[in-house]
């Protein structure tokens, strides 16, 4: 019986390989460019648009009210939306859907995801849609973006759509977050400490804090990969490039020196990270009695985690939390990482031009509507992408709120808005997500692995970089 199984399996394989020679091709490449030759005619028929995102229930409520608003203008565009779960969920799901030829029309995205979708050439190039001067048939509305609309976008956010190495626009920013420095303002005031603006200052402050509280970690930094990428960007030492389909530039002496320096500070106990600590560093930050940290670099969208259990929404604080931009390496070349969802329009084999136009109109609506931007920001703690949102009265009032839970959220948003000229996004290409994973792993290895002497440390770092680059280039 066993022999029979093997025989059958082998014959199946052989039979099959013969038929493979033919190399039957599935599917057809979609044309991901749009050419507009006249006013856009949406007709009167219902156009169905699907939208996949990662919004929770609260944000979906905001979305739903604005879909209603949108439908007042475009009654025949029917939008159905669904949450795919978390970020890796949505990426995996859309990958499969693209491979199957049936992606949603609009998707939440990060640049790394878009780089993947681009392999299939499924992401619609937005340039024509943005720049066209044609109108929507039957209205006075320009179907592309007006000059004012374009100018209203915070430039660095807007430019995120262009990080794919081919100078084409693939995404529109929806709402953004960044990394900010949370610090214990009460402690800083009490001990007369200066909030650091550069890394050198930061390490100096760490030393001071360590002298006051030897048990503590002065700094908690949540994401190792972000840290490394940010440092590369600030010091212009090179991380990756999207040129020529993607290059890995991080394996260089400068970066090794950066990591080595970080290792020294880590060994001195100046900081910890989420992985190294074994729990969220925000837990250290909100701690008031046990071991704690006095500064914490985390997402501006995670402000609620930086409040201790004893804090209440009505403003009883264990200590006052201050929010500041993250330290810089060079004050003349400020760089801060930008995160948060953008929107892309996807095209499958069955996607009609009308659907693409309709999708664009919805994307445009979400990204340029001040009310939506404001409400979304208030509900999520993310930052709006339009400069004019701060002129919205409600929003301005919200930002100025003096206390309570939302105070911190608003403060983060404010810091984010203030730093809007400094944002960067690392280049995206097929493999950019691997690079991010690998430098994160490399950081962990370099910081925490035991090494007997200086030479061993160098060897360790050398090896970790080598492993990371090999894995990237595999």
């Amino acid at each position, binding site marked *: 019986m066993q022999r029979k199984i093997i025989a059958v*399996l082998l014959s199946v394989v052989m039979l099959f*390989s013969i038929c493979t*020679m033919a190399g039957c091709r599935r599917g057809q490449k979609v044309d991901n460019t749009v050419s507009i030759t006249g006013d856009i005619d949406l007709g009167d028929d219902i156009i169905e648009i699907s939208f996949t995102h990662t919004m929770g229930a609260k944000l979906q409520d905001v979305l739903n009210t604005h879909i209603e608003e949108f439908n007042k203008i475009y009654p025949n565009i029917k939008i159905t939306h669904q949450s795919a779960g978390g970020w890796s969920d949505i990426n995996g799901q859309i990958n499969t859907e693209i491979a199957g030829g049936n992606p949603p029309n609009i998707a939440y995205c990060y640049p790394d995801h878009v780089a993947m979708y681009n392999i299939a050439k499924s992401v619609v190039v937005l340039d024509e849609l943005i720049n066209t001067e044609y109108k929507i048939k039957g209205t006075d509305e320009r179907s592309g973006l007006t000059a004012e609309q374009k100018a209203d976008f915070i430039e660095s956010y807007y430019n995120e759509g262009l990080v794919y190495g081919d100078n084409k626009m693939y995404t529109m920013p929806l709402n953004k977050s960044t990394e900010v420095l949370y610090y214990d303002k009460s402690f800083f005031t009490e001990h007369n400490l200066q909030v650091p603006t550069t890394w050198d200052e930061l390490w100096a402050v760490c030393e001071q804090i360590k002298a006051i509280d030897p048990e503590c970690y002065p700094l908690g930094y949540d994401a190792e990969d972000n840290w490394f990428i940010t440092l590369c960007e600030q010091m212009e030492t090179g991380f990756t490039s999207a040129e020529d389909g993607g290059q890995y530039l991080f394996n260089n002496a400068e970066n090794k020196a950066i990591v080595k320096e970080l290792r020294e500070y880590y060994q001195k106990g100046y900081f910890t990270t989420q992985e190294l600590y074994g729990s969220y560093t925000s837990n250290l930050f909100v701690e008031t009695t046990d071991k704690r940290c006095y500064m914490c670099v985390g997402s501006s969208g995670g402000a609620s985690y930086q409040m201790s259990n004893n804090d209440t929404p009505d403003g009883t604080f264990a200590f006052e939390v201050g929010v500041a931009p993250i330290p810089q390496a060079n004050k003349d070349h400020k760089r801060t990482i930008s995160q948060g969802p953008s929107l892309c329009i996807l095209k499958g084999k069955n996607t009609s031009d009308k659907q693409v136009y309709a999708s664009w109109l919805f994307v445009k609506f979400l990204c340029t509507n001040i009310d939506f931007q404001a409400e979304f920001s208030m509900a999520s703690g993310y930052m709006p992408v339009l400069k004019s949102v701060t002129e919205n009265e409600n929003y301005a009032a919200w930002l100025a709120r003096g206390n309570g839970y939302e105070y911190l959220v608003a403060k983060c948003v404010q810091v984010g808005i203030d730093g809007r000229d400094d944002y960067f996004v690392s280049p995206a290409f097929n493999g950019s997500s691997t690079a991010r994973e690998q430098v*994160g792993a490399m950081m962990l290895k370099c910081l*925490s692995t035991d090494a007997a002497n200086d030479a061993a440390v160098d060897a360790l770092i050398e090896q970790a970089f080598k492993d990371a680059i090999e894995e990237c280039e595999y």
Partner: protein
Amino acid sequence: MVESKHQWKAWLYLLPAIVLLLVFTVYPIFNTVRISLLEEYGAMAEMGLDEGEYFNFGLGNYEKVLQYKDFILCLKNTAILCVATVPISTILALLIAVALNSIKPLQKTLQTIFFLPYVTNSIAIGMVFAAMFNIVDYNAENILNSQSLGIINNVIQFFGGNPISWINQGSSYMANITVMIVYIVWNALPFKILILLGGLQSINKQYYDAAKVDGTPKWRVLTRVTVPLLSPMLAYVIITGFIGGFKEYSSIVGIFGDKMGPAHDPGLLNTMVGFVYDSIEKDRQGLASAAALILFGIILVVTLINNYVIKKRVHY
């Protein structure tokens, strides 16, 4: 067996199953074989190809899998997990099943408890296990100065042992693997207990009376009577255990997260299926298919060996 002149009848009965299997199992297998032979194949890449372009046909994917620097590591992890967890979980399940079968009060309650993990969502359990072993703020000089040692270390301390780092920095490969073994064994227990207990309850009680009359010690009853009479069940549990063990992946994600290893050495515990998943995620289905088929070959060989060994010992 009935000599049926109407062979078509048998095929008729099988028709629905065969049609569905052809469409949703056999065809995908064929497709996997095909894809594994297309160098650098990716499902999305295929969508993006220009007219007339296509992937090269050849064994490039297989070569590439074998050249992967951590291929041996993945294989080693998979093998260790298999070889360790299958016997441990089987023996433990056997002991529990035998013990359960030998008691009267509380039997049903305990039986239900042992089945509980089967209906408990696996997402939840992975998080729980990770939390149980997790050390918060590992202190290299003196582990006791760490902020929290985790419940497992607390238990170890309670019994006078020294806490060790299980999954955090400073943890050894041995410790990591041990955690994985504990978790996988825990996961595998309910099904095995269920099968073995079912088997035990179908064994004629007179064999035990006979053994009792002969004054057979408990241990000998277990090894000479119970185990042989249970051998078909045991064989089933062992073979499926090996097959499942070779497919181990999600349990490692459950404990170590996507980085598949402790903080100081991500990827240390990667397995074959982990590699397959990774490749699929990166739109390298060609590589994934080749790796999966290599794994399939290994499973097939192991199963055949298993069958061969077990056939000699199983009494039907």
